[in-house]
């Protein structure tokens, strides 16, 4: 097997430069590449375009890179629950492209799959459709949407092996698999890095071919955004 292991997050992020376009997995704070985000902050690269479903909260996730003004453009579907984000957006400091969540996922998937463009009904007749080609299929209007182009994809998995095979856990899966192989270089951080041959080949969510670098992350906080419980 081809060994994709790198020693640490610093090696994993080698080559990231200011002005690049980055994809980051996660939904809210669930399944986000915590280590990579921390390293991006440490590196101080700026003028970044970030493609991610959400923008974190004020003091965690992508919110960290907003605090330090490293993000120039945010491409997301939902950005609520983040006061600093709202401030930067409304003041015009931050450029924001909001796109439907399914279109966001499919534009990642299309990039992974070598599909340059596809049609979807989402957003037709709304602001999202302005300036886009539209076309009728089966009596219904659709928009032409394009695959994303990105320099790096940062994803977080539960388990991975040294060949880059990945397994996700629960709803921490979300956008992570769709972003694998969707950028020039895909960096996977995992909670547990295991030797090749440990994972059942039937149960792998993302084969290693879609991953260029893998490392075992450390000090995961895995914050819960809305702790909702039943009392016994």
């Amino acid at each position, binding site marked *: 097997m081809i060994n994709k292991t790198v020693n640490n997050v610093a090696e994993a992020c080698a080559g990231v430069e200011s002005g690049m376009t980055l994809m980051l997995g996660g*939904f*809210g*704070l*669930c*399944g986000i590449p915590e280590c990579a985000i921390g390293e991006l902050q440490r590196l101080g690269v700026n003028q970044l375009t970030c493609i991610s*479903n959400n923008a974190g909260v004020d003091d965690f996730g992508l919110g960290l890179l907003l605090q330090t003004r490293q993000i120039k453009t945010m491409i*997301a*579907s*939902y*950005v*609520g*629950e983040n006061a600093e984000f*709202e401030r930067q*957006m*409304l003041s015009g400091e931050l450029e*924001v492209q*909001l796109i*439907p*969540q*399914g*279109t*966001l*996922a*499919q534009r*990642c*998937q299309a990039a992974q799959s070598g599909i340059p463009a596809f049609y*979807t*009904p*989402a*957003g*037709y*007749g*709304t*602001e*999202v459709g302005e300036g886009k080609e539209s076309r009728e299929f089966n009596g219904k209007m659709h928009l032409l949407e394009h695959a994303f182009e990105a320099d790096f994809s940062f994803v977080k998995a*539960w388990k991975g092996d040294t060949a880059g095979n990945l397994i*996700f*856990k*629960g*709803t*921490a*899966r*979300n*956008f*992570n*698999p*769709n972003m694998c192989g969707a950028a020039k270089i895909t960096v996977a951080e995992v909670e547990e890095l295991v030797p090749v041959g440990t994972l059942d080949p039937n149960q792998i*969510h993302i084969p290693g071919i879609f991953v260029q670098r893998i490392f075992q992350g450390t000090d995961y906080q*895995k*914050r*819960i*955004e*809305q*702790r*909702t*419980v*039943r*009392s*016994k």
Partner: protein
Amino acid sequence: MALDKFQIAERIAQEVKDGYYVNLGIGIPTLVANFVREDISVEFQSENGILGMGPFPWEGEEDADLINAGKQTITALPGAAFFDSATSFSMIRGRHVDLTILGAMEVAQNGDIANWKIPGKMVKGMGGAMDLVASADRIIVAMTHTNKAGDSKLLSSCTLPLTGVGCVKKIVTDLAVLEVRDNAFHLLERAPGVTVKEIQQATQGTLIIPDEVPEMLKK
């Protein structure tokens, strides 16, 4: 008297049929799950990647890797499945989800809906709403009949940026149940004790009133 949010959810739960896969939006729609009849089989989909969503976890059993689209900690029922976001929207776009229940800031009498943006003021984003309303055959909107300023949310045409066009079929508010067709709101039911006149006053768009308007939630 106007319904509270639990009663709105209770009334919407009556629209949920045996064998339905249902996507519940954030807010009142989330409450619908609590009122679905016990004797039918229904599965809840959350677009962040779970089918077979269960209730909130017991205290101390929360899992950061198990949330719904509202970022709330949840549980998975036996028979549940997890999947990625693209697969999730395959379910939605491919019309495999039978019923979508979501909130709105405005609905127009032609079925247009607006719920994601107030220009210059509030921009949270559309999340999965645009995919849901563009794809679902059955869409029910759960909302209050008027906004905090007392203005009607059932309009002749939407004033806010749209989420989808001509897609809303049914609306359940604190005052009434309405069907949207033929470019008008058709009054189906009224909240217990609420008069047709009150509903009419709270509705800016064209309201079609039949001779008889039964009360909601009659046992």
